[in-house]
């Protein structure tokens, strides 16, 4: 217990120093000195519920787009494999990286999360539960989930979302990627508990 606490304090300190030294993306962000697993959960969910994540986790068959999360223009649909209809694939327009000329975002395996992982309209508790539910999350273990959240390139895109069609930078999640990764790991290591609210 004592060791754990010291560990946490040190890690937090390191993160704090790092984020101060490298003012990445979210300068306004300030990390709490003492992040409890609950706070880590808050932080993680503030990212997952951000439009950069939610837009591709719709509960229906329509991707969302933009800062206002409007239904994707042109009636674009999920399709059977979550990568578009048979001939209108996500990759008709979205490639493996952002396109600076068109403003079309891109990342490897660009597509929708499966419908079982549709988060729209769900509370953060329900989203977290779905995240841990092998019946919904594609039979993933907690370790797999942590890996997805912290390493997947499509998830990582949220912090490098490029510009939109008019050349305006897309909004990034409210905490930095490093802080998010840290929070996810901390939450998972602490038992991946989901609070009641």
């Amino acid at each position: 217990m004592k060791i754990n606490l010291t560990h946490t304090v040190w890690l937090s300190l390191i993160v704090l120093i790092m984020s101060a030294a490298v003012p990445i993306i979210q300068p306004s962000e300030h990390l709490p000195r003492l992040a409890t697993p609950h706070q880590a959960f808050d932080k993680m969910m503030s990212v997952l519920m951000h439009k950069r994540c939610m837009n591709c986790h719709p509960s229906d068959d329509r991707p969302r787009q933009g800062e206002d999360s409007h239904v994707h223009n042109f009636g674009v649909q999920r399709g059977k494999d979550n990568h578009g209809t048979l001939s209108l694939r996500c990759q008709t327009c979205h490639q493996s990286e952002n396109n600076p000329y068109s403003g079309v975002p891109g990342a490897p395996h660009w597509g929708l999360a499966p419908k079982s992982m549709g988060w729209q309209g769900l509370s953060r508790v329900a989203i977290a539960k779905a995240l841990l539910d092998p019946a919904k999350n594609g039979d993933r273990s907690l370790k797999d989930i942590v890996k997805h959240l912290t390493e997947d390139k499509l998830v990582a895109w949220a912090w490098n979302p490029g510009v939109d069609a008019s050349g305006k930078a897309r909004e990034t999640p409210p905490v930095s990627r490093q802080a998010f990764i840290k929070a996810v790991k901390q939450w998972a290591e602490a038992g991946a508990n989901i609070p009641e609210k």
Partner: protein
Amino acid sequence: MKISFTINGKTQTVEADENTPLLWVIRDGLGLKGTKFGCGKAACGACTVQVDGGAVRSCSYAVKFAQGKSITTIEGLSQGKELHPVQQAWVEEIVPQCGYCQPGFMMATAALLDKIPQPSDDDIDENIVNVCRCGTYYRMRKAIHRAAKIKQS
């Protein structure tokens, strides 16, 4: 950088900045003007080509991704003088008006028929989402069904 790909059956090597949209390499580099610039934002579909058989909007496709791939443009849709079933159907239904968006639609349709040989109206609505300002959609739908028939026979 140097990028090599096959276009309309011919191997090509081009020298271009790797992020140049494929559209401009096709149009200005290779002089194939059938692929159109409509919006440059992958929104209208006028620049649709096929990359390895799939419909791709070339204005939003960095040329570096074309390395080693096979590209087809409207100029390569027909076999010499013999029209592709989609072009044949387009002629028979007298689809084009101004004609500017039509190559993109025909390329998208050709890709559709490869994936769905007998598309329903819903298949057409879901997969063909290019923009036509003259309003030729009504005839295009008829032409897509006709092309499917020509292709089958």
